[in-house]
């Protein structure tokens, strides 16, 4: 369903964009651009990024297109001022260049099998719980230790005692066994910058439940199965929580003001510089008696603001 919607709104965005750039009247162009921005906003929603979708509507459709319309109305272009259109030959050439660019940009993505296999492997497991499949979740080393213990029929504490060794080779071996144990759980371990290991869930939510039952059942020799159950249940809970939080405002703000605060402040500085630039560029020369002749006398007279 979301695939059909994605294609529909994508086609609408491209079509309205095409109509927008071919209008002679800039007001019509701005209105069709608005439609295109709205369609792209819906696409962001379909990509599970609600905050970015809201920003698209607020910033692009609600500020940028509005500024365009303001300037168009301010200039009040008459027919003669709109500008000649280039000859048909040049337009055809531009069309050819655009088509070539489209092929150039779309083909590497379409033909990149490594990139697509990551998605199709996740899709191949079936429907249901699809969102869980796609998101990475933090796997604490304690989880992996617990699963390893379960597989060896030990208590997690017994296994943990042997993993006190912090030498390089011991850590590498532990990582290798951790990968094997994670594969047993149907997870794939990848290292991330954060302190834990991150696991990409390769199974559906239902299959994770089945594996959980398998792991719990394999503990018949161990006296207590609850640590492993707790660990796997905690894993599932974290995955669910992360799935709900992806692209949400809470998660976004959480890292925007912590990890990316420098970028945020730099962009604020850029906005400030842009405001200063706009005020300087668009002011009227000769206004209030400052700044002399070149703009105020030789320029066109008349008009309210110009």
């Amino acid at each position, binding site marked *: *369903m979301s695939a059909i919607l*994605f294609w529909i709104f*994508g086609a609408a965005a*491209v079509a309205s*964009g095409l109509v*927008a*750039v071919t*209008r002679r009247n*800039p007001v019509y*162009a701005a209105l069709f*651009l608005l439609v295109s921005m709205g369609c*792209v906003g819906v*696409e962001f929603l379909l*990509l599970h*990024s609600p905050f*970015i979708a809201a*920003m698209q509507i607020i*910033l*692009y459709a609600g*500020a940028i297109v509005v500024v*365009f319309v303001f*300037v168009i109305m301010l*200039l009040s*272009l008459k027919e003669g*001022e*709109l*500008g*000649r259109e*280039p000859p048909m030959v*040049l*337009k055809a050439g*531009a069309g050819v*260049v655009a088509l070539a660019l489209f092929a150039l*940009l*779309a083909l590497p*993505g379409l033909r990149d099998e490594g*990139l697509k296999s990551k*998605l199709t492997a*996740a*899709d191949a497991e079936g*429907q249901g719980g699809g969102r869980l499949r*796609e*998101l*990475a979740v933090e796997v604490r080393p304690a989880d992996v230790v617990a699963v390893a213990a379960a597989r060896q029929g030990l208590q997690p504490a017994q296994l943990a005692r042997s993993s006190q060794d912090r030498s390089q080779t011991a850590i590498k071996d532990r990582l290798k066994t951790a990968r094997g144990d994670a594969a047993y759980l149907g997870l794939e371990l*990848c290292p*991330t*910058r954060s302190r834990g290991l991150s696991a*990409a869930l390769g199974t559906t939510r239902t299959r994770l439940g089945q594996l959980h039952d398998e792991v719990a059942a394999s503990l018949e020799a161990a006296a207590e199965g609850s640590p492993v159950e707790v660990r796997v249940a905690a894993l599932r809970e974290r995955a669910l929580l992360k799935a709900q939080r992806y692209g949400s405002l809470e*998660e*976004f703000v959480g890292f*925007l003001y912590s990890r*990316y605060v420098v970028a945020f402040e730099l*962009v604020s500085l850029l*906005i400030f510089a*842009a405001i200063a*630039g*706009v005020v300087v*560029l668009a002011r009227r020369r000769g206004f209030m008696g400052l700044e002399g002749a070149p703009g105020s006398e030789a*320029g*066109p007279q008349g008009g309210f603001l110009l």
Partner: protein
Amino acid sequence: MSGLGTDAIFIISAALFAVGVFGVLARRNLLIMLMSVELMLNAGNLLLAGMARMHAGAGGDAEAGQTLILMSMAVAACEVAVGLSIVIALFRHIRSVDVSSPKAAQLRG
């Protein structure tokens, strides 16, 4: 992106970008050209969002892509503001937004 054709994001963003390029090349109205630049930026943001989702699904960080999209949108807003103020300043001098008019040739460096 479960259930989505994985090709969709590439095709749609590339098509949107190509439409923007066509707009810049085939039009002589400065306002329309600026609108086409906005279309191109939109295409880039869309691709970033799709790739961020794929990256998060494959075990990478989920935040970098979305933050980059937000920064790109903020930069686009700044660029539109400055570009339109240049359009206004130009219009005051040559009373036209046609970049192919001989009056606009003063802009050539």
